[in-house]
């Protein structure tokens, strides 16, 4: 987990934009703005991505792809909508083949305005996305301190006795015990 925290990978999908925002995203990876100093790499594989960067107002043909890419990304994931037309439809609003913004189909966490969005703004959007991503990570995998302490005790004991330590099994046992205890204790309200 700590590796992902330090270098999130982004997946960029163009669903009908004019390329204006896309070239600004690429300019961000260039030497002047350089997102790679934060360990951010632009990768084309949804299965390895943490942040989905979407540009464009979502045309009727790209929406299925967008949903599929979104589904394929592992949890936790953050969506950044870059550009006026990804946020609301922009100039393309109410044109006949356009769906007026990304948030009609997938939940968006950060909106970056501008037509075209400036690289500085995109950087800020991605930094915000990182914060949100970290928060989401904590929500999903927070291990109670009780378990951590118990785990350390057990491991120390086993090491002292010279036993083979199967860490995964220990955690599994502890977590299932913890959940059972939680279920058994009556709520006090």
């Amino acid at each position: 987990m700590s590796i992902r925290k330090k270098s999130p990978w982004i997946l960029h999908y163009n669903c009908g934009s004019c390329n204006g925002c896309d070239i600004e995203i690429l300019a961000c990876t260039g030497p002047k703005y350089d997102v790679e100093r934060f360990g951010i790499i632009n990768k084309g594989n949804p299965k390895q991505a943490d942040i989905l960067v979407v540009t464009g107002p979502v045309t009727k043909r790209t929406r299925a792809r967008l949903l599929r890419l979104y589904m394929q990304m592992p949890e936790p994931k953050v969506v950044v909508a870059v550009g006026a037309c990804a946020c609301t439809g922009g100039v393309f609003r109410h044109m006949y083949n356009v769906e007026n913004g990304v948030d009609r189909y997938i939940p968006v966490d950060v909106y970056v305005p501008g037509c075209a969005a400036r690289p500085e703004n995109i950087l800020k959007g991605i930094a915000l996305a990182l914060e949100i991503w970290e928060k989401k990570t904590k929500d999903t995998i927070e291990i109670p301190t009780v378990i951590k302490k118990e785990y350390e005790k057990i491991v120390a004991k086993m090491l002292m006795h010279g036993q083979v330590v199967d860490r995964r099994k220990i955690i599994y046992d502890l977590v299932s015990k913890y959940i059972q205890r939680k279920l058994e204790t009556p709520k006090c309200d």
Partner: protein
Amino acid sequence: MGNKMIVPFGSQHVALPEPVRFVFETENEIITNVEVDVGYVHRGIEKACQTKIGYKQVAYVVPRICGLCSISHNMAYIIAIEKLLEFEAPKRAKYLRVLAHELDRIHSHLFAMAHVAEAAGYENLVMYLFRDRELVMECLELLTGNRVQFDYGCIGGVNRDLTPEVEKELRKKLKKLEERLFWFRDVYLNDYTLNLRWKGVGVIPKEMAEKYNAAGPVARGSGVRTDARAEFDALPYRELGFEMVVYEDGDIWARNMVRMDELLISMRMIWNVLDGLPEGNYKENVKGMPKGEAVCRWEAPRGELFYHVRGDGKQILTRMRVKTPTFSNIPVLKELFIGANYADVPAIIISFDPCLSCTAR
């Protein structure tokens, strides 16, 4: 008979900046058939321009067809409308239009060349190109006020004047850029790896380019002499020292060299504009409503752009049609793939510098 295999490429792919879908049928890594689907980003801009947007606002909607050559769309439309209104822009405006357009060409070509270098696995060169591209972007920002969507031209002239302070900055930045361009030309001409990767790959013979009606650097890389700027009299290209660049080889390398040399020619025209900028108005009021029919041929960075407008004296045009350069290059691209090695596909596609948001609109 070898293994038959169907390889989908796109619509979302690492080597592709844009959604386009190719389905390749391959046999032992050699492509036997290919299908192209370009319609992912169709938005319906033409329809909207004919039904609900007034003709003056259309000038700021058409740049959103494509971000890389936004200024080409903007100006081609404006010139077509000016023909309808029988108006001729002031001389200073014409010079400024050339200036903005050539700067845009430099940024677009540098971008395309960076992509081709990336497909060859030359990461250093990509970063160098991107670094120097920022110089042009800064110039464009100084001149027009925005980095990508300039909205610089308007019916009657241009929206901003070139002030002496900006001119001074431009000169400083362009001087730096020009030195770098010579260095890049040296790399592209003489680098061993790049020549190995690009020479003789994806060759388009001259007959094929003529038969399939290729446009822009693709055609000029195969020895076809076509450039709309040479026959264009709405802007003073010949006066500013325009010259056509033609290479005969027809491979990826030649296409790149065409782009490279065009950069130097653009640079020369920019210096000429800055040195000989005439005094006068940069914008004039235009009266009247568009009535009748007009066309405009315009040399965008990727080839010939074509605008057709028709109005009947009302605010809203009755017909607006755009034909974009990438659209004319798709047939030759398709033909070229058959018989090529699958490993060359990304390099070939990117050497065409396709702009799909133009094609689908």
